[in-house]
């Protein structure tokens, strides 16, 4: 019963809650602009950033070799997001650009970590998530980044919706369309690096998209979809992390599996009730 008093469990639940709330906010915008797979592309670039940070850490002989891993991931992810957004707004096929980043990220990551004298095992924590090693420093960084994501993502909801719903109309109103598109791309990158800690690069995109997909089965309004997805995301991460306290399973994989199961259940229920009426 006193498990909740355990600092590690507190840290895990807190980070899980923040990520569960923040990821679906950006996920809603990605689904809205039909770029649900953007998270995968950027996630892999972030992985290269982790490796680059590691390499820098070993070059500078830092005591903690992975001290620069997360800053590296944030930097690379933002650069990747900006590149994708630039190319997309110039009319390049977004899926091809994402595929290139995807391959470049994972190949570059493996090469860089090799150069740093690490092994691919060092990358595994980032591939699959490593929430059980979360420190208070990680928690405060997550709090800060999640606050930015929630503040901008919720506060500018109508504007970000306007730009993705009808770009041409948005331009006619004088909205700064390019800047707002860039805001979405950069915040998505930040979300990915925060969520990477919990579910890992391989599943980071799922945490952004699956709650939105579930919410969409239920509601017809953009705002409600976003709010419901936040609730679902938080419930999924908290449940998943709580279960891993008792059973030795991989938290990221568990959270995403739970989400997919909920999706299947809700989809069957809604299709049944719709057939019934």
């Amino acid at each position, binding site marked *: 019963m006193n498990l909740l008093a355990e600092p590690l469990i507190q840290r895990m639940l807190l980070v899980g809650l923040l990520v569960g709330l923040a990821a679906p906010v950006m996920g*809603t915008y990605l*689904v*809205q*602009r*039909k770029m*649900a797979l953007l998270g995968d592309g950027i996630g892999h670039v972030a992985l290269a950033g982790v490796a680059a940070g590691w390499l820098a850490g070993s070059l500078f002989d830092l005591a903690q070799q992975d001290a620069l891993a997360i800053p590296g991931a944030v930097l690379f992810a933002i650069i990747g997001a900006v590149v994708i957004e630039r190319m997309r707004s110039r009319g390049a096929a977004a899926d091809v650009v994402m595929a290139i980043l995807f391959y470049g990220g994972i190949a570059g990551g493996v090469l860089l970590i090799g150069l740093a004298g690490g092994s691919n095992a060092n990358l595994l924590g980032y591939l699959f998530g490593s929430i059980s090693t979360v420190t208070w420093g990680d928690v405060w960084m997550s709090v800060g980044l999640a606050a930015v994501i929630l503040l901008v993502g919720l*506060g*500018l909801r*109508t*504007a970000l*919706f*306007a730009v*993705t*719903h*009808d*770009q*041409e*109309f*948005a*331009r*006619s*109103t*004088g*909205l*700064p369309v390019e800047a707002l598109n860039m805001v979405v791309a950069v915040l998505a990158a930040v979300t990915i690096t925060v969520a990477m800690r919990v579910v890992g690069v391989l599943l980071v995109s799922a945490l952004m998209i699956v709650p*939105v997909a579930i919410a*969409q089965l239920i*509601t*017809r*309004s*953009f*705002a409600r*979809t976003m709010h419901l997805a936040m609730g679902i995301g938080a419930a999924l991460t908290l449940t998943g992390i709580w279960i891993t306290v008792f059973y030795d399973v991989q938290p990221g994989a568990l959270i995403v599996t739970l989400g997919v199961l909920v999706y299947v259940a809700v989809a069957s229920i809604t299709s049944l009730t719709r057939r019934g009426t």
Partner: protein
Amino acid sequence: MSEPAEIRDVPPSLVEARDVRVSLQGTEILHGVSLTAQPGEVVALMGGNGSGKSTFVRSIVGAVPHQSGTIRLFARPATASSRAHLGYVPQRISAAGGVSATSLEVVTSGLLGSRDGADRVGARLRGLVPPRDAHARARAALRSVGIEDLAKRDVSRLSGGQQQRVLIARALVRKPRLLILDEPMAGVDLESQVAFSHTVGHLKHDRVGVVIVLHELGAMAHHIDRAVVLERGCVTYDGPPPKDLGVHALPGHDHEHPHTDPPTRDGGLGLEGP
């Protein structure tokens, strides 16, 4: 910038496009087209499919850049801040996302963008969030096009004509001084066309300028003050609307139309264009 003397004595135009050239993907689509609209004036922009009507209208509202020529809105060079009083109804939604949205949300998005004094940073930032009374204003706009009952419905599941009304409401909610509509009557039943022509009558009474892309004057005919006809990216006619209800009757339109007699051509109307 000094203005030519002959423009100075006419009342300031709400929109004044001069010799606008637009190229899309390396092909010149508009070869120097001009159009003006005064307060309270309803201008019909007509022409066959692919003649460049939408491209012209999109360059006026700032959705596509023009390579040369000038576009002035409200007697100022067109900038983001001059779009505060502009209402635009596109021919079709250019992006439409993967998440459903209600009519009310779509109309509310029309309240964003430039505000008065938008050249200042504070005003630009305020344009990023809806005003406090957004909800009531969006509902009123939906009511004005007769679909308040559809406020909470998912727009992507409305009929084509209902969606068109949502887009008109999204433009009207801005209380524009200049309203630009690209084929708002496409797929709209006759009753709604008549209803919308009443709306245009009210706007005209309030001195709003209207530029409307049409194929047939239809229910709108008695409000139209002037017709501008485009053909292959050039203006071939700019003058009083034809008595007949179709673009086919206009001079400069080479399409054969055996069922209607062309109206008496006024020799003084002249064909404009390069």
